[in-house]
């Protein structure tokens, strides 16, 4: 398998090898090596690759990446938050998930009133599941109407119990830092709102066995816990120090009883080895390490574009592929996997997904279907800028007026 992967990596269809003439420059052999900041190396790299990938849209993405990003405040349902919520609403922050639910409900009502609910159901979050859920009887018109009713109820109930406040497009206000309540729990967690989309896409159902393969520092894990739907959640990360952070985050947000071994397990191992524990999970989140585009442009420290880390950076797609394969193998047949990165790079996004599907079929005889998440674009268009050019999966683009992302996410369903 490794050989096949290597061969694939040797022929990138788009990438640093193809450059415009104007990007070429002479090398001067200086006695002292130039100390170019990693952030500039990153920018140079992005300019080369992303201007090809995004064409005219690159400048607008670029300036977003180079300007202050937006956050959301994920409300901690386990803390006393009335006051915080009141304050947020006074500041004109909106719970974007709630808002989009209201919108889609209104839409559904219109659809339900109309004749053919089936054609237009793409407005609700649970469409994908609806198709497969065997317990919904569809026979005759009466049943159809009843079914529509169920869809309505389910979609409203199936929106997860996540409250997440954002400032609307064009509003550059900031959130105040989290506060401790009387029980010593923090009121909210500040994160990129786009990071919630992979979690929403996972669509955890009550009673699901869930794996978060690369979990630290724990933003998405926390969101998963807020839903209170997982029967059991396993949160894993390779890095010991980052797993420590994950522990601390969970301790400051989640009541102890919900962290009992029966419901939550935090592990610290190489996600690529997870394949050994196969076909166990209903839902798997594979939020892989990537070039963290935004971070790489802003912070020198720990920058993946450091010359010393070139090899590591170049082998990222390989690592990502292996992690996704491990995640897919860890999922039960009919289980769902969401793959996500915070990079714009096709090489780390679509190519990894497509290659994983191929490898699973050819080398493991496992069939995987890429799920359509395009209805997310309609659902959350008021909050995010979505890219419409992904072959598979969805991509949130940074944009000055809604400066979230980048966030790529793709949902895969294991068929066999």
């Amino acid at each position, binding site marked *: 398998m490794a050989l096949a992967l290597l061969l694939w990596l040797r022929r990138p269809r788009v990438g640093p090898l193809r450059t415009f003439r104007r990007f070429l420059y002479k090398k*001067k052999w200086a006695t002292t090596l*130039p100390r170019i900041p990693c952030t500039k190396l990153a920018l140079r790299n992005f300019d080369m690759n992303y201007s090809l990938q995004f064409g005219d849209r690159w400048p607008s993405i*670029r300036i977003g990446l180079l*300007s202050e990003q937006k956050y959301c405040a994920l409300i901690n349902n386990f803390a006393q938050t009335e006051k915080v919520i009141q304050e947020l609403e006074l500041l004109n922050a909106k719970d974007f998930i709630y808002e989009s639910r209201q919108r889609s409900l209104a839409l559904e009502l219109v659809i339900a009133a109309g004749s053919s609910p089936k054609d237009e159901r793409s407005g609700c979050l649970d469409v994908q599941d609806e198709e497969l859920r065997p317990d919904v009887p569809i026979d005759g018109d009466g049943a159809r109407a009843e079914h529509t009713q169920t869809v309505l109820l389910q979609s409203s109930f199936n929106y997860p119990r996540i409250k997440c406040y954002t400032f609307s497009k064009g509003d550059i206000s900031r959130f105040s830092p989290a506060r401790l309540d009387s029980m010593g729990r923090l009121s909210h967690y500040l994160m990129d709102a786009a990071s919630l989309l992979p979690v929403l896409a996972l669509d955890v159902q009550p009673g699901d066995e869930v794996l978060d393969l690369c979990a630290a520092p724990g933003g998405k894990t926390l969101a998963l816990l807020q839903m209170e739907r997982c029967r059991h959640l396993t949160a894993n990360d390779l890095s010991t120090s980052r797993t420590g952070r994950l522990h601390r985050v969970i301790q400051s947000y989640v009541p102890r009883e919900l962290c009992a071994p029966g419901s939550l397990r935090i592990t610290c191992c190489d996600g690529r080895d997870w394949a050994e524990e196969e076909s166990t999970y209903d839902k798997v989140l594979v939020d892989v390490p990537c070039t963290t585009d935004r971070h790489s442009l802003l912070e020198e420290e720990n920058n993946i574009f450091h010359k010393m880390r070139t090899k590591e950076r170049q082998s990222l797609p390989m690592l990502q592929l292996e992690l996704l394969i491990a995640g897919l193998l860890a999922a039960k047949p009919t289980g769902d996997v969401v793959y996500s990165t915070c990079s714009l790079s096709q090489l780390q996004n679509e190519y990894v997904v497509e290659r994983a599907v191929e490898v699973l079929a050819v080398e493991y005889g496992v069939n995987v279907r890429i799920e359509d998440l395009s209805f997310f674009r309609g659902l959350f268009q008021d909050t995010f800028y979505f890219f419409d050019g992904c072959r598979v999966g969805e991509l949130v683009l940074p944009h000055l007026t809604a400066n979230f992302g980048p966030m790529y996410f793709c949902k895969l369903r294991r068929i066999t």
Partner: protein
Amino acid sequence: MRLVLPYILQPAVSLLRLCPRRHAACKFGSTASAEGPEGLFSVAGNVRPDWKLQDQFRLSIAKHSRQTSIKDAELDKAAESFHEMGFTNNQIIQLFKIQPVSSAPTLQQRLAIVSELLLLNLSVDKTLKVLKGSPDVLKVMTKTLKDRVEHLRRLGLGEGNLQKVISQCPTILTLPRKSVDATVRLLKMRCLFSAQQVTEILFTTPNILHEVHQDLEFKFQYAYFRMGIKQQEAVKSRLFRNTITEIKNRHIFLERLGKYQTPDKKGQTLICNPKFKHVFGVSEDIFLTKIAHASAEEYQVFKMLLAREEAEEEDNTEGTSGDEETASDYEESDEEEEDNAEGTSGDEETDSDYDDSDDETPERVEP
């Protein structure tokens, strides 16, 4: 058009002295109170009684000046002189309405300044405009005014240009020579503009004469060091017409979009920069649609973000360079160049960057 103003209806005039303006206007059924005496005089000619005209003159004399009693004869004589200079009645009224801050020029002073301006080859219209734009010019002594004009001429503002500058920036006539000289010295000595370039700057953007020197110098330094704009380009692009905030907004906007790069020592960039005059010499609309190719919403948000970034950078006394992506980074660039581009320090190196082999080297001000 010349009008003879006979002394008729004397009693009415003296009566008027006691009348508040509004009352008078109402009583005599004129349109004086409507702030638009055009109507009156377009039909006036010699048909209407002339006491009305004189009345208008008197009433139009700015309140402040009215306190010192002006004799009717004096007023008539002044009006006649203005007529001789080519003023219409309407224009005389407009002229009388112009009032400098906290001062009441005598009629003689008004006459003197007006004739001085007309001697400069300004039309009556332009003269009025100048005085409206800068009423304080009426306070300037004729000799001083002559001096100042002569000085501007010596700075290279020749016939035509001088008039344009005065029309465009009438307040220039209220500036003492010393202050003009100080600005000129700053441009020459600290920003290393040639005498000719200084003239052109004065011609295109005379308003800089009113600017605080520190701001002006900082503006230039930002353009020179941070953007790599040379003196000649600064002149041609009308750079100085923009405030420092506008300059930064447009520059950093383009830079982050990837559409502007600070040239390296050899003046090279990896991308093709837009012409400076297309960046700074155009309206915001044109700038966005033709140069930046970005939406107005994006630019609005960007301006707010940048303002906040700068404010926070100022708070941060560390002065850590906030702009993560100054662009003059080449493989061959050495560390000094990097520093230079970052705008962090390195006076010694940057000084050598000047084209002009002048000994005078400006000091860097940390942005």
